[in-house]
């Protein structure tokens, strides 16, 4: 197994995060979309507050277009995919051309859909499928388990971050943390031990049961500082 440079480790971690962010953003947008079918037309506002996005979209239409296609919006699907690509392009030899290609075709599809007047998020289902295919391809094709681990650590970090923002159940968050810790067994040096201890304390069932928004934001901050790449 070849040595992995610090820059490469950083790119793998962020590639994992951005792919996960694109996937989760689409997933959550579908839920908001569903809610707005027979809910309040302003239900979308809660979404961008949780995502900590500064842009205040005036209408539901603007919100949809902005969250999907606006590359300037760091929380948009377009931005996440582009950032994923910026990392992937420098990792071809590790993740393989076929794995990279799922990001490439997702970006191409998003660019094409942007110009479709009646843009419906359902049309973007293939991007969700390709993000899943990306993971499958990575698992099949990556030969170095440490490379796969760095990708998975990035994905799980991002997943925990978003789940905490959207107040997912304790069990689901604790499971992700358990998975993340499993992957870090290949790279124990990557974890900040102090932060790890803090997270473990906060993820005690009794402690978490008392969680409010502030608690979750603090936990989210710890999760984002846990891995040192």
């Amino acid at each position, binding site marked *: 197994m070849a040595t992995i*440079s610090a820059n490469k480790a950083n790119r793998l971690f962020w590639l994992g995060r951005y792919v996960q962010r694109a996937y989760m953003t689409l997933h959550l947008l579908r839920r908001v979309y569903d809610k707005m079918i027979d809910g309040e037309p302003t239900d979308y506002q809660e979404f961008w507050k949780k995502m900590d996005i500064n842009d205040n979209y005036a209408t539901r239409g603007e919100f949809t277009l902005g969250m999907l296609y606006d590359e300037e919006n760091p929380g948009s699907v377009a931005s996440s995919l582009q950032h994923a690509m910026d990392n992937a392009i420098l990792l071809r*030899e590790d993740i393989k051309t076929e794995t990279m290609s799922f990001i*490439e075709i997702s970006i191409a599809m998003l660019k094409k859909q942007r110009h479709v007047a009646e843009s419906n998020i359902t049309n973007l289902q293939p991007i969700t499928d390709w993000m899943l295919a990306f993971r499958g391809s990575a698992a099949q094709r990556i030969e170095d388990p440490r490379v796969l681990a760095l990708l998975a650590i990035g994905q799980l970090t991002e997943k925990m971050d978003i789940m905490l923002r959207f107040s997912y159940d304790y069990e689901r968050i604790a499971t992700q943390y358990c998975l993340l810790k499993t992957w870090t067994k290949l790279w124990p040096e990557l974890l900040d031990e102090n932060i790890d201890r803090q997270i473990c304390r906060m993820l005690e069932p009794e402690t978490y049961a008392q969680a409010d928004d502030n608690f979750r934001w603090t936990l989210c901050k710890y999760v984002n500082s846990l891995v040192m790449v």
Partner: protein
Amino acid sequence: MGYINLLDLIESRDAVNKWMERYGVRFGVYKHGVFNEQLFPFDSVPRIIPKSDWDYLEAGLKQRVKALNRFLWDIYHEKQIVKDGIVPEEFVYAGKGYMPECEGVDPVGKVYAHIAGIDLVEGKDGQWYVLEDNLRIPSGASYPMVARELCRKVSPQTFKDNAVADNRDYSDLLRQMMNEMCVDGGIKVILTPGRYNSAFFEHSYLAEKTGATLAYPGDLVMEEDKVYYIGMFKEKVRVGAIYRRVSDEYMDPLCFEAQSLLGIPGVMQAYKAGNVALINAIGNGVADDKGIYYFVPKMVEYYLNEKPILQNAPTYLPYYEEDKDYVLANIEKLVIKDVSEAGGYGVMFGKDMDEKRLAEMRQLINDEPRRWIAQEVIDFKDLGLLEGGEMVERKADLRAFVLTGKDTVVWKSGLTRFSRNPDSFVVNSSQGGGFKDTWVMMK
């Protein structure tokens, strides 16, 4: 050569191009200081080389590259070819490609040009001519390699029906050569200047296919005459061979361009100590200078005691009075090349110049005869390609790749580049050209 049915392959062109987009097969171009990545236009009608032609080319290419490697060794050691008056010293030491820092350095296995890209054209009479030798960082092999992979995917029947040599072994040839050159069991790396290099796709694709580590500036350090790859926890792994895609002058800021951030400080020290192989060697520019080109057939005779198999395009050196007189008298029918330029730049056709420009050119040749070469315009064979659903004919060349490790081998394919402009002979991708796959027939 029997009848070859290409209809299915031709109809699959769009599918191949879509796959190329999906695989990110691009090249970068700087225009007005702005970097853009674009697809390399691919035409699915291949260049087909019959076996008999290939046998001739293969023998000639091996012979030529062997002579060039001998020349490089000689120039940086005994300089016998200069002493014997075969190549004038002005053409060796005045060129930009000569690197005095390489004097007396013994590269691993005495190999300088591990990867040579030899540009050829086929005349209308079927005669092949060498146009240029590229011994520094010849690029382009990855494109026909990936194109073949995709053509086989979209049109398998075409390859079932035709006995075409499989060209997807380029990465195996490259890996084997790197293994043979590798010092002390170190790792093999491909050193790229980074994403904003025009050939970055190729660097990353070849790293993927050879299993070499793609190294960026800053990933490698030299310590105690050895080169190391630095891991994320500062651990050091010995490097045995560097397939560098960084130009000579940027490879070592302690030796060449002091401002360079692309190279490895001190790498020349490790190289001189024989502790790392540089692929290709530093200083090869002295042998692929457009002026030196004229002397390559003479090198074949001098070093190998053989008749040159491949022909140069008829070339004149204004450095010699007799040639200068001919060039000045016939300039309007010749192509004039500035020996210091590359990539299709500095190439001027006399037929395209008005009287004023011709007079200026004559003056320039008189003032600096060493700077120019002149060649007869070869009426080279046009190749058919699809444009807007119609077959049209365009000028095309062939870059053949010759790899030298313990042995010299010729890759059974090559990069066929074509001009998209019907009036142009310039095929370079940087100037809008496209590419084709190159088929070498097995029978």
